[in-house]
């Protein structure tokens, strides 16, 4: 047991911070559960938001926003993961030319620090260019692109998911012992073979952690959804959107996610159904939590037979 006053103060200070943080998180979760669970039922999960309702407490279900979150997260991650991996391998294994490495490092930090609404605004300017109409739809009056589609939003989402993926993978690469790299070289392997067969397999947990964090950033983002997806809570997708002939049209169109639904249903938005907002927030929380557990497990799978 520490005896000096300063020593003891440090110990209890650190201890109290841990307790405080745990308390805050538990309070939020409990609040969410108490208020959200009341509103989450099968109908809530399987019906679309109520169209055009201005009546208090009538905001319908969340099937479309839930779908939107899943699609945006999947598409964003799909773009960000290979890009992030390649960037991390460049930074961690090659690192040359040195100037490019430093610039890339700075860029990753910048993306981490800049609020997503800035990227959303930038995306709006880029994607509305007529030459990029293939990413969204044409605005009949001006000939420009709407810049609002699942494609446009996913691309920008990939950008904000990149920093955690790169940093987490980079840290994992740095922890691969050098003797293993040398062992691969000593067997006459090329650098690429060494990276592919020795480095990549052992950094899987790091990649998984980065992916979880990146997915969390995507699922939690509101600004990009609002600007580049339209936040169209009241325009649920047409029936049979998943059929091949409709899918492309659907992905070119606007949509909503759980975050925008929470805003819409909250007292600040149009739906004015606080309970529904809590319900949707709880579902979003549960979703991120489940992804966390599943991917965490996948990353730690025993290494053995390939």
């Amino acid at each position, binding site marked *: 047991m520490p005896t000096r006053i300063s020593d003891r103060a440090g110990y209890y200070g650190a201890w109290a911070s841990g307790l405080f943080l745990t308390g805050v998180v538990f309070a939020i979760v409990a609040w969410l559960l108490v208020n959200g669970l009341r509103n989450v039922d099968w109908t809530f999960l399987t019906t679309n938001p109520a169209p055009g309702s201005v009546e208090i407490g009538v905001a319908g279900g969340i099937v479309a926003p839930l779908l939107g979150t899943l699609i945006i997260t999947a598409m964003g991650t799909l773009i960000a993961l290979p890009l992030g991996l390649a960037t991390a391998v460049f930074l961690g294994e090659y690192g040359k030319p040195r100037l490019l490495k430093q610039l890339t490092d700075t860029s990753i930090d910048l993306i981490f620090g800049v609020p997503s609404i800035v990227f959303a605004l930038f995306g709006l300017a880029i994607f509305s260019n007529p030459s990029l109409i293939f990413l969204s739809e044409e605005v009949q009056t001006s000939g420009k692109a709407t810049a609002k589609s699942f494609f446009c939003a996913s691309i920008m989402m990939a950008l904000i998911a990149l920093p955690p993926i790169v940093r987490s993978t980079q840290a994992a690469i740095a922890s691969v012992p050098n003797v293993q790299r040398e062992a691969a070289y000593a*067997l006459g392997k090329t650098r690429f073979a060494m990276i592919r067969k020795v480095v990549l397999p052992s950094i899987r947990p790091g990649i998984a952690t980065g992916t979880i964090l990146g997915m969390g950033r995507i699922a939690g983002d509101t600004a990009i959804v609002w600007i580049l997806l339209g936040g169209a809570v009241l325009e649920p997708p047409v029936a049979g959107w998943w059929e091949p002939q409709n899918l492309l049209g659907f992905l070119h169109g606007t949509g909503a996610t759980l975050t925008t639904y929470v805003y819409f249903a909250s007292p600040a938005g149009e739906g004015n159904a606080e309970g529904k907002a809590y319900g949707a927030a709880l579902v979003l929380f549960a979703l991120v939590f489940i992804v966390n557990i599943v991917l965490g497990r996948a990353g730690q799978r025993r*290494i053995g037979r390939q």
Partner: protein
Amino acid sequence: MEPLDETPQSDELYQQARRQEWRHALDTTSDRRAAGIPTDPTAIAAVPPAAPVTVAPAVPVLPIASQVPVSSVRRAHIADANDLALATRGLRVAFSGNEILHGVDINAPRGGVVALVGPSGCGKTTLLRSLNRLTELAPTAQIKGQVLLDGNDVYGAKVDLNLLRRRVGMVFQQPNPFPMSIFDNVAFAIREQARKRPTRGSLMPAVEQALQRAGLWDEIKDNLDRSALSLSGGQQQRLCIARTLAADPEVLLMDEPCSALDPRSTARIEELIVQLAGSLTVVIVTHNLAQARRIADYAAFLLNGDVIEQGFAEQVFETPTQQQTADFVAGIFG
């Protein structure tokens, strides 16, 4: 520059003596010792009787390790001592302008076991790593002189680096199996970077042969899909040897391969090295003079980046011509 060599790595004999000191200090049942019962039978079986560590006298006395007889029968596996599998000529290596090796000439007769001995920081490891061109992985390394593999300079312009490293395999100080299955560790060495992946069945004979040669097959043949990291330290090191043997090298470089192992595993590896000699040439860096005595046909003593003396192992260890060598094998420094 030479991190592996920088760590003060004591002679095993010294370490054992230290362990016994500790045991003595901690042992409450010292009557066992009084009765002459060995406290650690395995250690005594594998390592020659430990000499008490005392302040070394100024005049070389009987070398500690000379209690171990040198087997001269073993040299039968060397067909022609003038047939050099590997040799260096005027090899100079510097890191950031700081020269570690000052023009080294080493001879490794085909089929022999060559021990490189010398105190920490004398350049043994750098020399070894220059033989398969691992030294140049350090961006600051400058290498001059020749390393001749079958008479051809490995630093020549047309050398295929990846092929060279297959012909001159290497086993490291720490067992470093890859985080894959046992099978994949060995197969990794022989899988060409071809588009078409060879099947497990087609790789199996070579994998089995390599594991047989490394004396590991019988222990793990039913567990080839287990992670290599689940093996014991000694097994991991033999797996690393098997992995290297799978590429069918002509020369095997070993950088203190037993320094991280217990005496029993050390004995296994030494046995293996003696078995392998003849079918390939072994160049081994060792800090353990007793080990060098047990396994080496030839020895080279390095000091501060120069070869002080080299030749038949027993000659270097028993009747050294240089005073520095005599002092080193007598344990006056090291």
